[in-house]
């Protein structure tokens, strides 16, 4: 067993933890039995930490998608164990179906859902506010603002989930997931906490007759949850009780507010109500606060949910308080910050804003440093080949993973992308209406996530497109988590490798080719052959992720590429393949030996210009 402090640290020990690690400790202290997930920034370090610890205290699984992860966790909680299920915000859209109904039946063991939201879109396709789900599905909701709070709230969320027998949401945002701070540990239980399952189809089998009854039970449970919120130690007030200028604040904004008040020296001029347990609203506590204020300003990133609740409460109780919230400064877009709140507070308190000056203005015209496909990335080779064969004649339906970076020139391998797994289905609809050739790109993990259903649909409805499965044997973008396509020797005994070709053929695909991504001639020949056919065609292009191969298999090649002849061919390769291991040194082109992975795709693109040589 691992000797990691998260597993061995006793009560009272203090450690510097990432919030996502503190959530792990909180779950362990609660006595979690099962953890399921689909990885996604900013949630991934939670399951990855459980994986690293490798303890027999709990069972961990990387599920194929968020819906499945939620259902597995729900099953574990039905069986009486405490279950933690983790995902990024958009993942909860996938898991929404079981979420709503699980809240009706209730889950006796206790389920905590981590929804990691991403205001600012640091690594996401939208910045949706998942506090809506807590309201829509009726889940008690906690929003930590520090690593220490994350441990405590995770523990409290489990306690509540068990007591109410209802799923509870732990809602974080990127800045919170990825902050570090000192965390004081609580006690680790001797064993996991389990209650027996008692058969009760009248409750646990969701059909209309039970649903009507259970909806009533859910309303009752949420009343109880509201009482918990009224008394929660995470909902606290600070400031002089005589001050009638109020601020109500939740989530990460609590940090920005505290720092803005310290910077402005305004601590004595406002009274603050901080909400850490944010649903259901502690109405009595809020009303008492509103009644003792002339004005309140509501601070929350994202949508004006708390603000609407406060306005409704004031209206319902004929409270004369003036409520301020979202406006031109405090928008629904992006993140808040200390300086933003300084500016808004200066307005609110009608006082000058402390001067915020930089030592220097932003330097203009600096070369950017966007993320890029790595040197030796197999996706680059496949994209190059597809561009050679289809050029601008085809439309490219892309999907979510490292390979989305193929959107960048010169590969330009993405014309549209909606969400996880959409490449095949959206490509199908596009081809049907446009009548144009469509090539859909999807990675191995995304294929298992929700590409399989799109492929079944494409066959069933006789769609016409070429699907290229970019199989690099791992979930690369989020940090090399396992998926069913991963090699059996890497997965170990706990998981079973699924063969993508068998899945594809099993669904009924007959026009199929399987190639090695670095064999350019083979890839192009297969593409040429599939190009002129009609119907659903699948090309499976395989090559391990270069980063992963180096780390996992300690696989380093003994060869590197070298330019042997400067000129047109070398330039063409640099302009069309754009491998980051190439560099220009004045008029000449060279290969950086430290970056070159030895894939030798450049040799196939421009045989006259490049040659292989021994490394070193």
């Amino acid at each position, binding site marked *: 067993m691992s000797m990691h402090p998260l597993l061995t640290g006793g009560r009272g020990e203090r450690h510097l933890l990432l919030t996502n690690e503190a959530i792990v400790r909180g779950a362990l202290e609660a006595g979690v039995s099962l953890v399921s997930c689909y990885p996604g920034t900013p949630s991934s370090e939670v399951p990855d930490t459980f994986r690293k610890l490798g303890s027999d205290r709990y069972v961990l699984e990387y599920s194929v998608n968020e819906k499945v992860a939620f259902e597995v966790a729900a099953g574990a909680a039905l069986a009486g164990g405490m279950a933690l299920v983790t995902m990024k915000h958009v993942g909860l859209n996938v898991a929404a179906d079981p979420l709503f109904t699980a809240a009706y039946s209730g889950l006796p063991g206790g389920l905590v859902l981590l929804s990691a939201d991403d205001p600012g879109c640091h690594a996401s396709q939208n910045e949706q506010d998942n506090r809506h789900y807590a309201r829509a599905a009726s889940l008690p909701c906690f929003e930590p603002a520090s690593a220490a709070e994350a441990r405590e709230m995770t523990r409290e969320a489990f306690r509540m989930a068990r007591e109410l027998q209802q799923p509870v949401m732990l809602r974080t945002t990127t800045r919170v997931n990825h902050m*570090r701070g000192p965390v004081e540990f609580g006690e680790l239980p001797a064993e996991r906490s389990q209650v027996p399952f008692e058969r009760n189809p009248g409750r646990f089998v969701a059909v209309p007759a039970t649903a009507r009854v259970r909806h009533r039970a859910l309303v009752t449970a949420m009343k109880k949850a509201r009482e918990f919120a009224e008394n929660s130690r995470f909902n606290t007030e600070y400031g002089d009780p005589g001050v009638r200028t109020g601020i109500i604040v939740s989530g990460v904004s609590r*940090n920005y507010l505290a720092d803005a008040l310290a910077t402005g020296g305004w601590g004595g001029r406002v009274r603050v109500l901080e909400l850490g347990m944010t649903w259901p609203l502690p109405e009595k506590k809020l009303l008492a606060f509103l009644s003792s204020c002339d004005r309140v300003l509501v601070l929350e990133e994202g949508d004006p949910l708390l603000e609407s609740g406060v306005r409704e409460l004031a209206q319902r109780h004929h409270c004369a308080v003036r409520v301020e919230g979202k406006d031109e400064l405090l928008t629904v877009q992006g993140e808040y910050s200390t300086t933003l709140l300084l500016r808004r507070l200066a307005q609110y308190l009608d006082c000058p804003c402390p001067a915020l000056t*930089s*030592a220097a203005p932003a330097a203009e015209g*600096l070369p950017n440093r966007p993320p890029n496909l790595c040197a030796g990335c197999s996706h680059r080779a496949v994209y190059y080949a597809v561009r050679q064969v289809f050029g601008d004649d085809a439309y490219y339906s892309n999907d979510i993973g490292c390979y989305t970076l193929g959107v960048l020139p010169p590969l330009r391998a993405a014309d549209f992308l909606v969400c996880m797994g959409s490449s095949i289905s959206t490509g199908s609809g596009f081809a049907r209406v446009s009548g144009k050739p469509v090539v859909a790109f999807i990675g191995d993990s995304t294929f298992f996530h929700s590409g399989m259903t799109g492929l079944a649909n494409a066959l069933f409805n006789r769609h016409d497109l070429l699907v290229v499965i970019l199989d690099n044997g791992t979930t690369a973008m989020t940090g090399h988590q396992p998926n069913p396509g991963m090699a059996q020797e890497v997965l170990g005994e706990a998981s079973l490798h699924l063969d993508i070709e068998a899945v594809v053929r099993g669904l009924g695909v007959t026009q199929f080719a399987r190639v090695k991504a670095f064999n350019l001639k083979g890839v192009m020949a297969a593409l040429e052959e599939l190009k002129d056919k009609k119907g659903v065609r699948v090309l499976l292009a395989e090559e391990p992720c270069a980063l992963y191969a180096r780390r996992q298999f300690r696989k380093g090649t003994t060869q590197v590429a070298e330019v042997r002849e400067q000129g047109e061919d070398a330039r063409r390769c640099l302009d069309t393949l754009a491998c980051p291991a190439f560099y220009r040194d004045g008029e000449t082109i060279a290969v950086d030996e430290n970056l070159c992975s030895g894939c030798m795709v450049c040799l196939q693109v421009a045989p006259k210009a490049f040659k292989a040589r021994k490394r070193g």
Partner: protein
Amino acid sequence: MSETTQKRMRIYFTGVGGQGTLTATTLLSRTALDAGLDLVAGEVHGMAQRGGVVESVLLLGGWRSPRLDPGEADIILGFEPLETLRGLPYLRPGGAVFSSSDPLPPVSVSLGNAPYPDLADIESRVRAAAGVCRFLPCRELGLQAGSVQSGNTVLLAAACASGLLPFGTDALEAAIKKYLPAKLQDVNLKALSLGAAAVAG
């Protein structure tokens, strides 16, 4: 702990994915924690790590926010000179900059589509803006200590030796001995002395 009298300080780290900027941030955070300081650190993960810019922050003395805005940093630790220049607006007037002087050209530069700014120009622009400014050959000093990666420790040591932080190189030395794997300690302790010597000289 939690003494409100602790000196408040905000540090901004910037570098390139794969350089070890986040590891360096965590080492300095642990150093501060063991020195009895209140702290919060923040970092950005995800897509930035495919060769993109990696930024992180360390706030000492009672701050709660895990991010910085322009003009808020007392100190910038730049692990790559172009990124130091890009991050310069985060510095408050009169703040301090410690930066590596070893460029890692972005892809647009290596492919010949954009020029890398002149190093002397970067240095003079930073010097004009900062109250304290030290550019160090971290790569060379790191190699001298035993590994390129230990160049990050050179930079941390320079900051600790400057007297601007609420702890000195002795605290960093203790953290290296406590938190780094045994096989990396000698190299990093050597890097520490080289970094400290570089700013003393």
